[in-house]
């Protein structure tokens, strides 16, 4: 029987696959990769495409929309993206987050008023403690 190695496919939102394989095909950034056990350590980014995990007669296909691939001699980890990533898309998202901040917070100055912040929080905490105390008295 051929040598096997462990494969983990995970995304930020869930674990997708975990098991052993004899061979793994992945869409690397520099071209299609075929990986077998005892491969030298390798770190590469992935293009959108399909992962093919071969184990005996079984083949499993997993679609990835990009991500990273880490290869160690006996363990291969695929860190799959869940979102479509591109520089300009990321840039647009960042811009949007900045604009949201500007829109929501134009009234107040950039300098944080620590005294006010602490006073307000102290007040809120005191209220919470009061509620707790009242509840304890009520239960007695």
């Amino acid at each position, binding site marked *: 029987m051929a040598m096997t190695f462990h494969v983990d496919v995970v995304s*930020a939102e869930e*674990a997708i696959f975990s098991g052993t394989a004899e061979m793994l095909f992945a869409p690397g950034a*520099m071209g299609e990769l075929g990986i077998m056990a005892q491969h030298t350590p*390798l770190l*590469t980014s992935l293009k959108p495409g399909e992962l093919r995990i071969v184990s005996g007669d079984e083949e499993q296909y997993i679609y990835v929309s990009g991500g*990273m691939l880490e290869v160690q001699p006996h363990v291969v980890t695929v*860190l799959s993206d869940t979102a479509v990533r591109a520089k300009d898309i990321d840039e647009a998202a960042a811009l*949007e987050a900045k604009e949201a*901040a500007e829109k929501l917070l134009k009234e107040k100055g950039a300098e944080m008023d620590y005294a006010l912040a602490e006073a307000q929080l102290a007040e809120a*905490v005191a209220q919470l403690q009061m509620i707790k105390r009242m509840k304890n008295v009520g239960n007695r």
Partner: protein
Amino acid sequence: MAVGKEIKTQIKSIQNTQKITRAMEMVAASKMRKAQSRMEASKPYAAKMRNVIAHLAHAHPEYKHPYLLDRDVKKVGYIVITSDRGLCGGLNTNLLKAAVASMRDNKDKGFDADICVIGQKGIGFMNRVGGNVTATVTQLGDAPGINDLIGTVKVMLDAYNNGEIDRLYLVSNEFVNTMTQSPQVEQLLPVAVEKPEKELKHHWDYIYEPEAKEVLDALMMRYIESLVYQGVVENIASEQAARMVAMKSASDNAGDLISDLKLVYNKARQAAITQEISEIVAGAAAV
């Protein structure tokens, strides 16, 4: 029985409130379970990434990533994760308190803070007290995706890359259990990697495709994003747990109030009946 009627309406209104808090409690309980499983599901990714990064730190790569290097601090950045909605006890208050305390600490050392706020409650707070908020995102819903966070995280990472901030903290609630959520201030950047215990016997490095720099940049960005995502998901679980507890105690309180009022109502009714009887008896005696 004028008094009795007033008390009765009061009881009715408290009962209605109790119905609402009960419903909210149950909704929060079911949402909490879902959020918890999402929280668990997001853990392997960050764990695997941590492994890869630990490997990297040990592997003596030819390219040292700036996220791994400590540098002199002039300004710091914060990502503060709050909930969008209230009625969840002291969850946001405690979190903001921890955030402000940490910011104050840095301020005393002479480091100003850039702040990135996630969640409506944090924005409301920052609106009242000021603060240099550079990015926000709200209305993530119960099941946020990582692409909802890419923008905000990128703003902070860009600030770090450009040298505008030299350290980045994440402030979020840790979900300990249903009853306990504790605010945490965690350092995201530079990434703290445990030093290898001894010098490794043999040095090895990855083969990088395409370039080490590109691969590491992409990897580090995803790592930070995944930590923030985890913080957000954990915060949602915390929020629902806190709301469940708050609504449960509200329902209990409403129950106490109702039973107190019922007692008052019955006493008033009893008094009215007694009075009526004694009037009749007095009337009969007079005849």
